[in-house]
């Protein structure tokens, strides 16, 4: 069975992808050697698509987002690969050009709404400032737009609340303000890093639904980084699963969840407790994700994999066609024909 390692990342049906990440490598030079935090990651996002990026803490999902918006904290740096936005490279842009892209073409939402807003300025001021930095409008128009944004994100009495301070809003409201800020300059891509993790469960659903709706309305794509599979299932079109700085599986949400090809993904899905029936123990994947300075050779998952073979220990698998999804697993190559019948 010939394996077909895909040299180019899997692209969805649309013509030019909005965002393309090719063989991205991010490293951290430390006193004790250089750590490779993101190791040859490739994926793309089509216009209007919502891509979920899921994985454990430390898998590299947030770093990927940071690299895309150009805000990697030193000493971290991009050591290889390319990032293309609408066909043009952005990873090597000078600071000022990248700054203009930020907000205008790429918006970002971070995890903690409590600390994302400057406590000393009204949210109106923060909104109009963002609008006026990127769009050529006067103050009155900016304010109108700001009120409109607040209304669109579901904040009641927007005209009064626009002059209030962040501490006067609850957590869920604040995240709506953050979303409004991210959308203020009408970006094409939104990088959302765990936008609901810090919120009450009851609010999470509202915020996610809001994000999805606004993205569709504005025609924006979303890269949704999270460790919550429930959110992924609700919101995303496609999902990429990351492990130890690599993508191990990527594909349409339904297929990845219900027919995962990679053993890690299968383990993840299996560990989600079902609400029906009785369970005595929660299912777990044995072992833990390796530390950055101790990544095993070959396939990074092989020490924990129940289906490990000698090849897995020696050669690192690339993302391969596994039928409905693409998975970085040597088993896929062998099993692929059989799978076509199941998915």
């Amino acid at each position, binding site marked *: 069975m010939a394996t077909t390692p895909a040299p180019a990342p899997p692209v969805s049906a649309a013509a030019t992808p909005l965002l393309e990440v090719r063989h991205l490598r991010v490293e951290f030079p430390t006193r004790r050697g250089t750590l490779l935090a993101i190791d040859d990651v490739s994926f793309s996002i089509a216009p209007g698509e919502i891509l979920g990026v899921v994985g454990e803490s430390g898998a590299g999902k947030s770093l990927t987002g940071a690299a895309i918006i150009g*805000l990697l904290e030193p000493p971290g740096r991009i050591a290889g690969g390319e990032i293309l936005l609408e066909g043009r490279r952005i990873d090597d842009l000078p600071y000022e050009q990248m700054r203009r892209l930020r907000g205008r073409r790429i918006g*970002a939402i971070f995890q903690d709404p409590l*600390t994302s807003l*400057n406590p*000393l*300025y009204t949210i109106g001021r923060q909104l109009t400032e963002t609008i006026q930095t990127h769009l050529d409008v006067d103050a009155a128009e900016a304010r109108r737009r700001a009120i409109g944004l607040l209304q669109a994100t579901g904040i009641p009495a927007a005209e009064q*609340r626009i002059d209030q*301070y962040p501490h006067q809003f609850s957590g869920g*409201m604040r995240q709506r303000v953050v979303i409004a800020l991210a959308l203020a*300059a009408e970006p094409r891509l939104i990088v959302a890093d765990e936008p609901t993790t810090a919120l009450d469960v009851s609010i999470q659903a509202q915020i996610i639904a809001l994000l999805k709706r606004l993205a569709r309305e504005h025609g924006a794509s979303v890269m949704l980084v999270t460790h919550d599979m429930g959110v992924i299932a609700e919101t995303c079109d496609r999902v990429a699963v990351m492990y130890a700085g690599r993508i191990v599986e990527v594909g349409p949400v339904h297929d990845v969840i219900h027919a995962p090809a990679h053993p890690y993904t299968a383990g993840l899905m299996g560990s989600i407790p079902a609400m029906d029936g009785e369970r005595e123990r929660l299912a777990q994947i044995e072992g833990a994700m390796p530390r950055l300075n101790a990544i095993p050779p070959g396939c990074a998952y092989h020490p924990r994999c129940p289906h490990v073979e000698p090849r897995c220990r020696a050669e690192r698998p690339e993302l391969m066609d596994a039928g409905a999804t693409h998975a970085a697993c040597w088993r896929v190559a062998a099993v692929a024909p059989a799978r076509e019948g199941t998915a």
Partner: protein
Amino acid sequence: MFAFVLRRLMQAVVVMATVGFLAFMLFQYVGDPVTSLLGQDATQEQREALRKDLGLDQPFPVQFARFAANAVQGEFGLSLRQGRKVSSLIAERLPATLELALAAAVIALVVGVPLGVYAALRRGTFGSQAVMTLSLLGVSLPTFLIGILLILVFSVQLKWLPSFGRGDTVSLGGWTTGLLTADGWKHLILPSITLAVFQLALILRLVRAEMLEVLRTDYIKFARARGLTDRAVHFGHALKNTLVPVITITGLQLGSLIAFAIITETVFQWPGMGFLFIQAVQFADIPVMAAYLCLIALIFVVVNLVVDLLYFAVDPRLRIERAVSAH
């Protein structure tokens, strides 16, 4: 907010009462005012007479009440060293010290804040490291040594600036000022720089540390992620957030400036309260010491209160009593 002000006023009263009590204890039990006033050879009769005169034979609470009543009016009796009324001594010297402290505060702020911001924004560059090293030197040089060095260079060797006194002053009502004459300004330069150096270094390091902290926050990261210009991020957002805590500390420093003025006044023989105080300590002139203590406490308390009110004005989180919460 009214409740807040009321609480602070009560705290202020408590502090003043405590200090007043300490001052009173100084008066009563430290040294014997009778012996100091009459000398060693006074007869027993003379002592008794003076004791009655001073009210020292009255019970303790009465004495304290008298002292407190007097103190509130600014009446502290006579200086043991000079025999003059303490209140007039201090009133004479107050303007000199206040002008010196104010000049030093202005220098410290005008130079310290921008340098601190620079050291934070250009962290790691040679310039910022040089600034930090100089600031470390600033806190390692005792104030009196700075004064001596400045005198050595500018008065002795270069002979550009005078090294003692206040120069020509102008009397405006009860206040004498040296700011209206060129000679007064010349005399003010070296002492105010001397007094300012330590505070300048502290403010510089404080601003830098605060700014570095602020630059690490999420809201700054988010501001950058929104594509705001560096100028907006650094000076619009970061600086404003940095200055809020800096204001408090700087306000408190004003009080400490007045205290450090003691040293500067001694080195430059500046006729201020501090110089008076030193002479009082050397002579064990308790009335002057007690009066100085109460006055300093008053200044501190007032400054603290003003700073707290300023905080209110600047930080919106404190202003609104109840957060408007809605889901």
